[in-house]
């Protein structure tokens, strides 16, 4: 296929592109490290800014009745009798070694709690991202520039779904499809049937956002010269949409996927509670209500790490997909 002439890169320019990409990746990684360091610093500040004794916060909160022995050992572990800067370094050191502390509300080391709960949340989040993309693409493909009515329905659908709060959507889906019709199990359950409703609940609002963005790009892509020329060559409407316009249209959506992942993880807090699924979201909520700081911070940092990695990946993907950066046709 031929890309738009001004966007093609000659073979001679290829090494330059590769070098630029490598530099960009390094920049991204560097930036990512800084962001993670900043996130860790923020959580350190969180413990020291909240009311009460940091030792008690590390030990799991006032109500877990930390004994004097426990408080003493916590103080030693985190260097709480030393100057703040030393405490900070000790804290960072602990994090780097994967020492996330002990969760008093779960009665397990935080790293253990996270290990037990990562898989279900990952399953849910990734499944929902895929589903959101599918939904967004299907609606966009079917309805963009296909006449007033269809387009309006499509874009209307996207706007409404983007505004649906997940807790409400989830309850309604649960009632209609699980309680009433019985098509899906009422409890989260393991296995695919138990994943459908929670994924839908998470995916629909995200699909709304992705759809809106993709639609705008799709519309403008369909007006581009290369599309007109493809049509002039006799390519059918669907060929045009799928082979030419799609790549352009998904670009901003790909960028958004990093954000979408973050939004999905937030949504997982609600959806896991609604569907009685175990996972990081559920665990985080328990940590927050019990004011169990080591657990709360542990989960938040893990999410930050995932988010940063995802954003870097997304940027890589963007470069791969962006036709302007391709080396040849």
């Amino acid at each position, binding site marked *: 296929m031929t890309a738009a002439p001004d966007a093609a890169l000659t073979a001679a320019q290829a090494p330059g592109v590769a070098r630029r990409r490598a530099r960009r990746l390094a920049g991204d990684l560097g930036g990512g490290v800084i962001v993670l360091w900043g996130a860790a610093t923020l959580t350190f500040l969180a413990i020291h800014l909240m009311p009460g004794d940091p030792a008690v916060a590390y030990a799991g909160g006032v109500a877990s009745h930390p004994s004097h022995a426990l408080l003493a050992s916590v103080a030693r572990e985190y260097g709480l009798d030393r100057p703040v800067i030393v405490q900070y370094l000790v804290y960072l050191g602990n994090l780097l070694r994967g020492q996330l502390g002990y969760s008093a509300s779960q009665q397990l080391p935080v790293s253990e709690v996270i290990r037990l709960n990562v898989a279900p949340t990952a399953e849910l989040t990734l499944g929902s991202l895929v589903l959101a993309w599918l939904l967004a693409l299907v609606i966009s493909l079917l309805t963009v520039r296909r006449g007033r009515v269809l387009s309006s329905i499509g874009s209307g659908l996207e706007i409404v779904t983007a505004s649906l709060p997940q807790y409400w959507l989830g*309850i309604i889906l649960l*009632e209609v499809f699980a309680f009433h019709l019985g098509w899906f199990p009422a409890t989260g359950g393991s296995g695919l049937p138990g994943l459908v409703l929670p994924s839908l609940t998470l995916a629909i609002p995200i699909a709304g956002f992705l759809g809106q963005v993709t639609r705008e790009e799709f519309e*403008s892509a369909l007006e581009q010269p290369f599309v007109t020329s493809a049509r002039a060559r006799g390519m059918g409407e669907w060929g045009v949409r799928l082979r030419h316009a799609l790549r352009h249209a998904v670009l901003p959506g790909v960028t958004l996927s990093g954000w979408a992942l973050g939004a999905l993880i937030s949504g997982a807090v*609600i959806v896991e509670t609604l569907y009685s699924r175990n996972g990081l979201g559920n665990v985080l909520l328990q940590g927050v209500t019990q004011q*169990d700081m080591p657990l709360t911070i542990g989960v938040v940092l893990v999410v930050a790490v995932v988010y940063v990695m995802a954003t870097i990946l997304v940027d890589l993907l963007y470069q791969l997909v962006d036709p302007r950066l391709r080396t040849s046709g």
Partner: protein
Amino acid sequence: MTLIDRAPELGRPAGEQPLRGRARAGWLRRVRPGITLAWAVVVLLLIAVAFPGLLARQPPLAVRPAQSLLPPSLAHFFGTDQSGRDVFSRVVYGARESLSIGVAATAIGLGIAIVLGVAAGLGGRWADAVISRFLEILFAFPSLLLALLFVAMFGAGVGSLIVAVGLGSAPGFARMIRGQVIAVKRAPYVEAARVLGHPPWRILAGSIFPNAMRPLFVLGTLGVGQSIVWASALSFLGLGAAPPAPEWGAMLAAGRDLISTAWWLEFFPGAVIVATALAATALGRHLQRRLEGRVA
């Protein structure tokens, strides 16, 4: 491209692609009936906040156990709840709760954002770099998680809720304001003012601020819609107002168990939240488009 440029604000793609030519005109034509509807919703909500008695005849806190769980009827538009309270009244009075939380949270978010955004935009390269990095760091936390972290630190409750949601929305606003300040800073008329020798404070107050802050109204509108949804989410999770406050999110949480037998408890408060969020978003974007039309 840094992370900060990649995160979208409120549905606009990164890179700020304005609508092009024909598509844009088509948009406006399609959207108009929606706008009227959105304005209608907003007006109703404002009446609910200011004069709830006009809309709701029954007291929202009047417990009548004998009349619990009645389905919607002429006497009770949205039915009654487990304590026999009129759901419609609770939704109307709840508007005050939910909207005030939303407005307060947005105000806090915008306040923080203005400080950060202006400092980054006007403070020179060093300040910009530091603040931009800081915002990137905040962006690494999904907004709800930022809010939850705050609640973990300071405990649950309405005050905590307001600050938490405000903090969650601040990074997004800050980035936009920073962008706006930078754009205005480089605008020809500011350059002209500088060349003409106007004192810096006059340039700031007369040219930069008014133009940079113009989209604030848009941000505020979009922000209030979003804050209401987040605040309701936190209330739903049990981190908000204590009963018997008629806060929409708390009402949804309380009615969850009874969805099979009393669907109206979940349906109506939720529908109202959706309508509010939709209206705010539609209005906000409409204003945004009008604004883009005016600014060169």
